């Protein structure tokens, strides 16, 4: 069964249409990139898929169930969201921040168990933050904070990840390492990822499918080969691009 499915989804922000009657099906094992210009509605679409926002019309199903009929609690057991920014108004340690990922699985009076701690520590190790466990989050660098937000998601262990610009603040090495990690993660155990990205070349390298938001409600979805054509991308970014091919693969450069 598909993990996430939208049926005739229509969406707009302040009068601008993001998508019209969008039918989207995300299967286990897939990794989707949402691409589009600034302000075109990538984040809005992502938030709507996570039920953090109401669509104008249409339906979204998570694992076959209408998302409207699920509580936020139930949704959080299946679906994790990475936001563009994290609010750290109050002090908190790295480990505490990772542990909030266990919240959807704890009952009202239940405390985090030793096992929950182990899940969090394992995730911290995977994204190389283990040595910062006791640090205060507001002392972290932008890249470390971004990886910590991903650690929280890995601690949550959902089946579907919706990531808003996961490569934000990351250097080239960390971009590659984080995306590789996420790709491996999505291959395990019937999982899938949807992420917004600004880097077409990273999308080509790590994603299996793309959703292009052109604006005015025009959308194109499909596999990478189908969607990421030179023509589509120039129309997407309103900027001329050159395709470069080598034995390592291909890339687009802005001209």
């Amino acid at each position, binding site marked *: 069964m598909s993990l996430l499915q939208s049926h005739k989804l229509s969406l707009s922000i302040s009068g601008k249409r993001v998508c019209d009657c969008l039918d989207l099906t995300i299967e286990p094992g897939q990794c989707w990139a949402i691409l589009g210009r600034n302000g075109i509605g990538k984040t809005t679409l992502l938030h709507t898929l996570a039920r953090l926002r109401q669509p104008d019309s249409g339906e979204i199903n998570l694992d076959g169930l209408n998302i409207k009929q699920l509580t*936020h609690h139930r949704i959080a057991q299946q679906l994790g969201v990475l936001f563009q920014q994290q609010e750290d108004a109050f*002090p908190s340690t790295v480990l505490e921040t990772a542990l909030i990922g266990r919240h959807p699985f704890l009952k009202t009076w239940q405390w985090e168990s030793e096992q929950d701690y182990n899940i969090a520590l394992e995730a911290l190790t995977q994204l190389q933050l283990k040595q910062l466990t006791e640090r205060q989050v507001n002392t972290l660098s932008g890249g470390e904070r971004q990886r910590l937000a991903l650690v929280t998601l890995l601690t949550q262990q959902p089946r579907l990840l919706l990531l808003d610009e996961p490569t934000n603040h990351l250097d080239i090495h960390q971009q590659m390492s984080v995306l590789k990690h996420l790709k491996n993660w999505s291959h395990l155990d019937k999982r899938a990822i949807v992420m917004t990205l600004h880097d077409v070349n990273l999308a080509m390298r790590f994603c299996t499918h793309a959703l292009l938001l052109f604006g005015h409600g025009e959308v194109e979805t499909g596999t990478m080969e189908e969607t990421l054509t030179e023509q589509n991308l120039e129309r997407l970014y309103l900027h001329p691009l050159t395709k470069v091919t080598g034995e390592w693969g291909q890339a687009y450069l802005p001209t």
Partner: protein
Amino acid sequence: MAVLRRKQFSLTLIGLTALSLISLAWGLSQGSINLTPAQLWNALFNAEQLEHRLIFDLRLPRLLSAFAVGALLALAGALMQTLLRNPLADPYVLGISGGAAVGALTIMLLGLTGFWLTAGSFVGALFSMLLVFALAHGQGSWTATRLLLTGVIVAAGWGALISFILAISPDTNLRGMLFWLMGDFSHASEPGTALLIILIGLAICLPMARNLTLLSRGELQAQALGVNVARLRWTIYFLASLLTAVAVTQAGSIGFVGLVVPHIIRLAIGNDQRLLLPASMLLGGTLLVCADTLARTILAPQQLPVGVITAFLGVPLFLYLLRRSQLS
């Protein structure tokens, strides 16, 4: 690790409970007649002693009122800071105390006292709470910033009304009014209601504590991790407002407890609300018991408004904490 953490939590709460009891004992022994620990012990358990009446009729009700109000304010402050995700929020930031003050001063201006004073300030507080809620709610959107700004503006309006009432009041009323505005326990002799409310408040808050920790990290983040944010926000707005209304009705607007106490706890043990909420209550109560005891005794036989003492303690303490957090 999980066990260690729960142990640390219980130790903190046990320590703070002990501190509260010590402060109460100290408060009970200070006053027009100072008691040694041995005398206090005798007086507590020997009904025939003269001091027994002194303690149970005069000092204990007042101290328990102080404790309850301190606990209410600290809890309300912690909730407001989470609701607005603003470290500078306190129980009065949304204008509750302003509304209560206008209610109370109007009653004083009319020459009424006693029950009417309590009723007037409580009605004023509730009115302000509903007014801010209705104004901030507007056309659906209910962001923390909008709520904060609405509250601050309404509070400014109440401030102007307070000045107006003070300006037109006859001189004989002014002293009572100023004492009310600065916070004062000399008329607080029935701690029962406030103590009951604090228990109810805690019973409502504690099951939501983990949700509140998440809310302090942002509404979207909390929602994405399974919190019903709309309901939580609504609950803590009304709960914090009611706690504040009860506190203000009991003893006027005592400043700084609600602002400073949650920060002291956060600096010591972090923002986990399962601990922050009960710990703030205990520390808030303790702080106000000490402040009120000082207010009674420093210039005895003259009594100072307790709000003056909390401000004297609170201002330097807060500045110190602010500086320390900048340095780290």
